């Protein structure tokens, strides 16, 4: 295999993303794409470091884990000893240096509460949260696209009016209250679905539904607006004048252009779920994921565990954003060129 061929293969991944470039432009485009990804990765590193730094200092300012860990009658000496053992008696800057050194080797230290590596706990809980988010937000995304398109195709039609009303309701109901309503209806009154824990596949239904509904409401509105905007554009009229099928006009021409805002919001919904909404939902339904872990870590002033969770969520958020940027660029090669 010649070096030219090897290089071509190396660049083929990037080239395939920039679908619409001529062969002559492909190598150059692949290089641009690589630079683009490296730049976004560098931004991501800054974000993760920033977030973890903030969490490190804030948690140390607002509380003292030793107060909680020792019984009320513990002596001052006992408290000092405990503080020393945890390394909390060192100057804050020194603690920070140690912390950063640990992060660099992926060692976040032991959870103060469970006395085992904090990252182990995080990695053990993460799959449950990932599952809940994937099912909940995934369902919201998959449902919102057809519903939003139908609403956009027939403004003021039955589907449009219904989705608008339901969406507004969905946006107005606080998530915790929605969860409680669903428990009362499906758990207590009807007795159809389990409301607590994660022992069977059925257990995911209510928490996923609670997580999905507000996202679905937001997504439908965005799909609807984006599609309405695109369907009114001149190129759609031209596509219709070409005698193309309705599916082609709506699905290929309009949806491709509407995809950018839809994808952006979808990504935000995933990040928003991971970084916040799962805390509420997992607490309501005792779903053993990261959200529940966060609540427990805060209750116990477990700084180390909290740092590990925040670091992980920040990494996920950055990763999702990077993936979105790349997909965005694959859909619209003009991104970053203008």
């Amino acid at each position, binding site marked *: 295999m010649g070096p030219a061929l090897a290089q071509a293969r190396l660049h083929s991944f990037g080239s395939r993303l920039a679908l619409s470039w001529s062969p002559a432009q492909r190598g150059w485009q692949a290089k641009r794409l690589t630079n683009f990804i490296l730049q976004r990765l560098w931004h991501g590193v800054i974000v993760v470091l920033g977030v973890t730094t903030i969490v490190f200092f804030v948690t140390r300012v607002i509380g003292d884990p030793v107060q909680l860990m020792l019984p009320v009658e513990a002596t001052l000496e006992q408290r000092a000893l405990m503080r020393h053992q945890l390394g909390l008696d060192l100057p804050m800057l020194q603690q920070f240096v140690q912390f950063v050194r640990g992060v660099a080797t992926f060692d976040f230290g032991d959870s103060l509460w469970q006395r085992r590596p904090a990252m182990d706990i995080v990695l053990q809980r993460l799959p449950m949260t990932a599952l809940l988010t994937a099912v909940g937000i995934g369902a919201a995304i998959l449902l919102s696209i057809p519903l939003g398109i139908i609403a956009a195709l027939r403004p003021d039609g039955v589907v449009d009016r219904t989705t608008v009303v339901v969406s507004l309701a969905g946006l107005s109901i606080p998530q915790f209250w929605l969860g409680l309503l669903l428990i009362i209806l499906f758990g207590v009154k009807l007795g159809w679905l389990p409301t607590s824990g994660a022992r069977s596949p059925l257990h995911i239904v209510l928490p996923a539904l609670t997580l999905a509904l507000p996202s679905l409401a937001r997504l439908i509105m965005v799909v609807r607006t984006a599609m309405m905007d695109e369907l009114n554009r001149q190129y759609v009229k*031209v596509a219709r004048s070409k005698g193309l099928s309705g599916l*082609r006009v709506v699905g290929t021409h309009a949806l491709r252009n509407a995809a950018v805002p839809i994808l952006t919001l979808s990504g935000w919904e995933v990040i928003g779920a991971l970084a916040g909404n799962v805390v509420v939902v997992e607490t309501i339904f005792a779903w053993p994921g990261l959200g529940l872990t966060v609540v427990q870590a805060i209750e116990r002033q477990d700084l180390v565990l909290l740092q590990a969770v925040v670091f992980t969520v920040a990494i996920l958020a950055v990763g999702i954003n990077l993936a979105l940027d790349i997909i965005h660029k694959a859909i619209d090669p003009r991104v970053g060129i203008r």
Partner: protein
Amino acid sequence: MTPPPLLEIEDLVVSFTTRRGVFEAVRGVSLHVEPGETLGIVGESGSGKSVTMQAVMGLIEAPGAIERGAMRWNGEPLSGTRHGPRAAVAGREIAMVFQDAMTSLNPLLTVGVQITEVLRRHKGLKAAAASARASELLRLVGITNPEGRLHYLPHQFSGGMRQRIMIAMALAAEPALLIADEPTTALDVTIQAQIVDLLAELRDRLHLSVVLVTHDMGLVAELCDRVAVMYAGRIVETAPVQELFAAPAHPYTAGLLRSMPRLDDSAGRLEAIEGSPPDPSDLPEGCAFRTRCPRAQEDCIHDPLTTDLGSGRGVACWHPLAPPVAHGQEARVHAGE
């Protein structure tokens, strides 16, 4: 028996529902296009000329609706819905080029995709054959290196190039009729001339019938065989192009012609038609032009009927300008009263 016209529109009425009520953008238009003919439709913005052609293409969408009228293609009714005919004819036998080439192409699809989708749909071509044909079409409209350019996105072309691509796309299905809706309005003057030349050349080479929608009388003089003048949703005058320019019968046509800049006239100032086009939701009773018309009299409050002036001429006016004596100068004098 004479063969039926290629396209025939009879008493077409298109209405739009707005918050202020229903108004008719097209109020009973009848016209026909013969094979090989170039028909110009002229009129000010809002006169209904584009809406008429969009009705033919089936592009009228809510809040617009076709209220009434028949459209026939080669004598066969263009069947369809309230919003226009089905795509069977529109797109395959009738193609349309739009005014704004900058926004007429999908920004996220390569021009190759946008041309080949027509070939796949109407010509049943597969990927490779469609690509080959698409680059042939691009070459036809004067784009160099067409094979490479198929992979370009619209933003990589200039406005004039995009209009060429639009024309290539319109010709992909080998239509018999090309509707060009102000194809040069959005372009630079030098580019306009190129596009006009291209349209004329392709029309002759491919034996196309053309409907040219424009407000540019110069373009009409250059390209058209016959002209229909529209005002406030109606055709007020139709005539072969030389006769129309020589001796307009409708006062509005005369006004339009007088508002054209002339090389041989040193007067300096352009004459304009007094007033502005009427609000389509609040048209004057009877002849819609009477409020601006220098020849208006009391009977203009009744709807004017279209009078046949012979030799394919027609005018909808109670007090048309006198037929030409010699060179149409007299008509111009009358109109200036």
